[in-house]
């Protein structure tokens, strides 16, 4: 027993020095914002391993299928669409439309329920005979008229566009993490072995290293903001704050192995502007902050996030408000206006969706931030779900649980696109402007542009939306009367 302990302690002391060297090296590199390409290599290697795993799973599945192949004759109505043929996705870069994969059914689109149908859309164009048929029937009410609604309803039960956005995105191929599997671990011994190796690397090497780096980053931010708060206001303080802010977030970014690619840096948000981005998780803030200093706005949190928020607020202007204040939209808008009116303030970062969405779509933008009347810098953030799901399902996991999952994932790989600044057109309402910005972000990020309110994660659909549908139906009836 004593022997074992001494061996362990000797082994530990030998390994400790390189480990610490590595740590210092990573932190130093992170703080000057340079990369020597280790992460890029790591990501490439991972992709090769996943590709190998995918092939292995496919051959195993094929062998299984052969034994139980039953001739399933499909004809006529049910269409033959093979979903397996999506291999080309591997060569495609991140951020290409990948909205709805893994579908169960093929929906008929002649009756689509959206919260507020655009006025121009009432006149559906009869493009094929499937639509023409029911259209003729609306000349009068018939017993069969309502079945389009029944069918649409059952289709929504099988598959809908909204609730799936609040669940982790499903992957086409297993990325060798347990939490995304579909019972793949025991496909073959080779794959199980790879998974075991990956497990050891992630939990016994990467995880402790990341925790230490992350703690260092948070500690650095807290200490630097505290010492900055002692300095008098002025340009020196602003400059130091900007440096400290970026360094702190870069170190934390290393702590979750974030491999971030910034595109179009010429449109990086300038001072006293509003920066608007799609929201997947609190990590969004970190991702954007590695490249630019922002003022943040949001609800006051408790716990780990709370410590963080208070630290940040010491050194530079951020807007944190109490939960009770959120109802008072005017107060929030006023504080926003006040912030933007000072040309020395850093750009303010807003996530107008108001809730985290699983990075496959963009939901309704709240109009508040578009009422400020300032220039808007849209930013699209797209994570690569193959290396670890960045989506924070806040109803299921706490912040620390989420961080733990992030740190034991392979990496966080993401693309950030700065988009050209946008201004509100004359005569354009805040809602229209918000929708315009949203569609630009959705297009760049390859996300599905949805009209639904992200708050549906917690609350039920509004009654008025149903009334809108009733109105639509009545219009069709009236026309014929």
């Amino acid at each position, binding site marked *: 027993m004593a022997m074992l302990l001494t061996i362990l302690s000797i082994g530990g002391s030998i390994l400790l020095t390189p480990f610490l060297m590595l740590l210092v090296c990573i932190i130093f590199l992170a703080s000057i914002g340079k990369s020597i390409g280790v992460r890029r290599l790591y990501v490439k290697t991972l992709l090769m391993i996943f590709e190998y795993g995918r092939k292995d799973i496919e051959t195993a599945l094929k062998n299984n299928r052969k034994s139980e192949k039953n001739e399933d*004759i499909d004809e006529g109505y049910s269409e033959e669409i093979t979903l397996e043929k999506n291999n080309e996705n591997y060569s495609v870069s991140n951020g290409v439309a990948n909205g709805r994969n893994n579908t*169960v059914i093929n929906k008929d689109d002649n009756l689509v329920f959206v919260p507020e149908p655009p006025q121009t859309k009432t006149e559906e164009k009869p493009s094929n005979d499937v639509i023409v048929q029911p259209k003729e029937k609306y000349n009068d009410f018939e017993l*069969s008229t309502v079945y389009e609604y*029944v069918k649409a*309803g059952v289709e929504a039960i099988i598959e809908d566009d*909204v609730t799936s956005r609040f669940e982790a995105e499903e992957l086409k191929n297993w990325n060798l993490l347990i939490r995304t599997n579909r019972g793949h671990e025991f496909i073959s011994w080779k794959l199980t072995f790879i998974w075991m190796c990956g497990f050891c690397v992630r939990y016994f090497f990467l995880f402790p290293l990341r925790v230490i780096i992350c703690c260092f980053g948070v500690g650095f931010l807290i200490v630097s903001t505290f010492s900055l708060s002692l300095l008098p206001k002025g340009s020196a303080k602003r400059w130091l704050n900007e440096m400290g802010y970026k360094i702190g977030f870069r170190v934390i970014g290393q702590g979750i192995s974030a491999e971030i690619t910034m595109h179009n840096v010429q449109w990086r948000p300038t001072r006293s502007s509003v920066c608007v981005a799609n929201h997947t998780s609190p990590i969004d803030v970190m991702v954007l902050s590695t490249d630019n200093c922002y003022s943040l706005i949001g609800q006051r949190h408790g716990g780990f996030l709370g410590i963080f928020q208070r630290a940040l607020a010491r050194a530079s202007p951020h807007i944190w408000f109490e939960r009770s204040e959120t109802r008072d939209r005017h107060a929030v808008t006023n504080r926003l206006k006040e912030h933007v009116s000072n040309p020395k303030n850093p750009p303010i970062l807003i996530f107008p969706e108001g809730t985290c969405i699983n990075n496959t779509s963009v939901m309704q933008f709240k109009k508040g931030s578009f009422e400020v009347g300032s220039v808007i810098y849209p930013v699209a953030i797209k994570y690569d779900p193959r290396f670890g799901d960045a989506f924070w399902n806040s109803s299921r996991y706490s912040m620390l649980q989420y961080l733990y999952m992030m740190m034991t994932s392979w990496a966080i790989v993401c693309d950030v696109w700065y988009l050209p600044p946008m201004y509100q057109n004359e005569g354009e309402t805040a809602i229209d402007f918000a929708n315009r910005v949203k569609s630009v972000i959705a297009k760049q990020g390859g996300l599905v542009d949805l009209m639904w309110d992200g708050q549906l994660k917690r609350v*039920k659909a509004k009654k008025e939306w149903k009334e809108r549908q009733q109105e639509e139906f009545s219009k069709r*009836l009236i026309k014929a009367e």
Partner: protein
Amino acid sequence: MGNRSSLLLREEEIAQIQTETGFTPNQIERLYSRFTSLDRGDCGTLSRDDFLRIPELAINPLGERIVNSFFQNDDFNDRVNFRQFMQVLAHFIPIKKNKENKLNSREEKLRFAFKMYDLDNDDMISKDELLAILHMMVGTNISEEQLNSIAERSITEADEDGDQMISFEEFCKALQRTDVEQKMSIRFLN
């Protein structure tokens, strides 16, 4: 997590549901994963509220009637298990010529459609029931008299024995020329 719980579906259960409904094992697993993600309380059954949490269904004027059709079999139970869930969905499988299936025949599809109107489950559609459905569809946008005349006309058009009600037989006749197979079928992918 929907994915993980799909492991809990046993081979026998899949086989049983497959023979009952005609879904392929792959479809059954995918629908099971959907079922579990709708099941917020993780109790293996769905309540009416679980269904109505789907926004697209909640704003469907007939949403509540559709949900109700899942709770038909058994009046005392206000929760649906996966088997019952699949049996209702099986009505919407397209009809295949060489495959006999109890649940997706033309008659079953018509029966499902009939029950949408038959609020009190007496196998007859009365004028009041028709009016109630019309109310659900149009809300307050059409006047009472107009709705009344629509309901009356629909009844007289379909009614053959003059009892001012539509029986299932009369209903089938009225929809004889309607393409029920298409209207009540969903394209399930393999």
